């Protein structure tokens, strides 16, 4: 390891530099962390795979329209030509008593029904890509929402302390005590046929914002608490006490001294929370209270595939694998980010 890369301590004012030596500017903590992250092969491989998944899902509309030539949101009952053979998408059994209808299985041909059809005759591959888009969108939007809210609450509670801290801490306790699925199911029943209006914000029953808000809010205490703890310890650190002693205004201390230090913790949370939120979104969608049909998410596709588990296991298996791989990449990458930014952290996020 090159000494220059870690020699932030050598840049001490007043210390004489050897004659003729070219002065290299010391790398800042962000650059150092970034370099450390880049050197983490597992994290980089996970990031690459995650980016590939995101790019793949972004091609959903193109894939459906130009490659598979299918509308993955409309029930289809006709036939499809696979390797010159005309096959019925929903095949009625002709053997024995002729009971049951089985959707077409995987053709392993990207031009149609690569992963087979679901019970509505829709292309599972195309739905998988669209579903991935929705799952990723909900996971990222809820993560951003969660981090903003948690950061705000954690910093305010930790910095101002006293009554503000007491009130906010109790609110977080209440949210923490509320089982996420109970909250989600209650909201879903209330919104079953109507929309919710909070001032200028209107959320319709089938809106993707509903799972985003539910997931975003429910996980706030998981992040707000450690942030609050960190702010409490920062508030008593020497450089903050010095700033206070120098008469620096509170908002400036908050902005210049506290927030930059908290930011690293928040960044560490991003991939880990995304992974957790993705699993939660899938669970909610599986319970019919997340993404609403005919829209897809990996959770809804698993639910569609549940009734076909015996005859067409691929419908449930494919999105299950997709969730597992994506969550794995996010977790491995998240670990890398944590090691790079906050190597001493014992931070772990647990699912509920």
């Amino acid at each position, binding site marked *: 390891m090159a000494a220059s890369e870690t020699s932030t301590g050598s840049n001490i004012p007043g210390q004489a530099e050897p004659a003729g030596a070219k002065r290299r500017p010391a790398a800042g903590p962000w650059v150092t962390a970034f370099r450390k992250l880049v050197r983490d092969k597992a994290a980089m491989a996970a990031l690459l795979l995650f980016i590939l998944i995101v790019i793949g899902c972004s091609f959903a509309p193109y894939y459906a329209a130009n490659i598979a030539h299918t509308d993955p*949101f*409309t*029930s289809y*009952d006709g036939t499809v030509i696979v390797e010159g053979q005309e096959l019925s998408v*929903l095949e*009625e*059994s002709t*053997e*024995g*008593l*002729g*009971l*049951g*209808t*089985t959707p077409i299985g995987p053709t392993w041909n990207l031009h149609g029904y690569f992963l087979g059809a679901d*019970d*509505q005759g829709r292309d599972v591959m195309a739905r998988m890509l669209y579903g991935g888009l929705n799952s990723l969108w909900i996971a990222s939007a809820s993560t951003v929402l969660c981090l903003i809210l948690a950061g705000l609450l954690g910093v305010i509670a930790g910095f101002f302390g006293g009554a503000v801290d007491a009130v906010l801490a109790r609110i977080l306790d209440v949210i923490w005590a509320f089982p996420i699925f109970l909250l989600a199911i209650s909201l879903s029943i209330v919104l*079953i*046929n109507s929309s919710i209006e909070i001032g200028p914000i209107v959320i319709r*029953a*089938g809106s993707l914002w509903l799972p985003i808000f539910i997931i975003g809010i429910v996980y706030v205490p998981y992040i707000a608490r450690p942030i609050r703890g960190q702010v409490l310890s920062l508030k008593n650190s020497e450089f903050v006490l010095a700033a206070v002693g120098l008469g620096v205004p509170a908002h400036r201390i908050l902005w210049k001294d506290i927030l930059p230090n908290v930011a690293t913790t928040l960044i560490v949370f991003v991939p880990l929370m995304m992974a957790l939120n993705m699993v939660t979104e899938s669970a909610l969608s599986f319970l*019919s209270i997340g993404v*609403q*049909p*005919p829209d897809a998410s990996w959770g809804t596709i698993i639910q569609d595939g*549940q*009734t*076909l*588990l*015996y*005859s*067409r296991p691929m419908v449930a298996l494919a999105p299950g694998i997709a969730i597992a791989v994506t969550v794995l990449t996010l977790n491995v990458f998240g670990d890398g980010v944590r090691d790079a930014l906050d190597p001493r952290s014992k931070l772990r996020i647990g699912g509920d």
Partner: protein
Amino acid sequence: MKKTSWLGISAGALCLTAAALIATPAAQAQDHRGGTMRLVAVGAGGTIDPQINYTLQYWQLYQGLYDGLLNFKKGVGEEGFKVVPDLAEDMPQVADDGKTLIFKLRKGIKFSNGQDVTVKDVVASFQRIFKVSSPTAGGFYAGIVGADKCLKEAATCTLEGGVVGDEAANTVTIHLTQPDAEIYYKLAVPHAVILPADSPAKDVGTDPLPGTGAYMVESYDPNKQLKIVRNPHFKEWSKDAQPDGYPDVVVMDFGLTDEAEVTAVANGQADWAFDQPPADRLAEIGTKYKDQVHVTPLTAMWYAPMNVNIPPFNNEKARQAVSYALDRNALVKRFGGKVLAQPVCQILPPGFPGHEPYCPYTKNPGGGKYNGPDMAMAKKLMEESGQKGQPVTVISEDSAVSKSVGTYIQSVLNELGFKAELKPISSNIQFTYIQNTNNKVQISVTQWYQDYPAASDFLNILFGCDSFHEGSDSSINIAGFCDKEIDAKMKEALKVAVTDQKKADDMWKEIDKAVTDKAAAATLFTPKHVDFVSKRLGNFQFNPQFYFMVYQAWVQ
């Protein structure tokens, strides 16, 4: 098998064969008597109280447990729709232009607790229908004199002047406010069974009540098992109404998934699954176990009621557009294929009194046959209706088939230009949810299975003005359809049926067409019933009223 036991040990091999061939049916039946029949179900059917429970699951089992004055014949096919005397000696003596029915009670029949069945029990049982607020108290029995008072004040119900017992003559007289052509059917369903007079005037929940049938409930735990054993006081009095059964014990285990039920029956661990097999096991049981599968048409329908009182389906053309656009063949596929369902457009199911094939919502209509959807006509009607772009929420159950049907309907609605959403709701609450007008349900997916074989049970019950109650969970006219002219015709047909059933059936034919034309509901298909039985189960018989006759099958 012990067919040799009655032949004697001296009989030779030849005699044995010959004797086996000519063995009498009675002797054969005796050989099959005994054993334990194991039934499985996803869940229990709720209260065990026969005057309250309104599920097929228990109505099917009540057949060997309880008796009414009348009963449906324990026969197959059309025979099963016949009403026969049960605890009554004969069909009632009718007087006062059909307003008075006099039943003479059979003697010597005992309840499973050893008590004799008396006139007092009959009178008390009719009062109990109202005291326990039976779900059909208002629908089926409101025509009994004194019922109006009982419906208002259930606790003090006496049905004074309505159900009168004469202990000396051993008769019970039922007085009606007006003649009712369907009263025999109403007296033959489980809500009108006869229970001991001292039965509690409240829902007994899990404590079984003594009955008069060939069997009795020994124990009932809704989380685990229902156990039925032979009634020690039973002596067969009518093969048609209450025949003796084959198995000694019948148990129904709860808590399996429908997949597990199929596996249990396939492996011989259970003899019959109450629930319909899941879609992805149908092909397997239809091929690998085809000798153990029985498929029987039902007098029922899957339909999509459209709320005629709120947009967009307060517009008749929008409703008709939906009816033209729905591809019933596609829906049949989702139900399990054409062996398991028949596409239909009209309200009355095939084979039902008053049914005449009629299907206006198809390509090349005429002849009553369904020839596929007419999308061009649907889109034209949609344009004329001016309802394009309207938001619509389809409410289905969260079961696999209902959700699949709902998803398909949503897809078709979007194709027509609506902005459709699908909301699957738990099967436990969906049926009451879609009935309540406060929920503003626009279109839903539901089913209707006959209570008894009369056209009015579909047309009058589902589309009559009297069945529509705003703001109530019990408003079975889900579409909220109330056409004064059609309603008057229905009332007329009900009156005519008292004296001339054939003429009434002709009237119902016209009413069926009129209601179908108004498209208050899109009828989707007539389902068939799949019974998957174990290898050892024999003598499977299907009664059109109460389905598989559990006690008439044998397991040894």
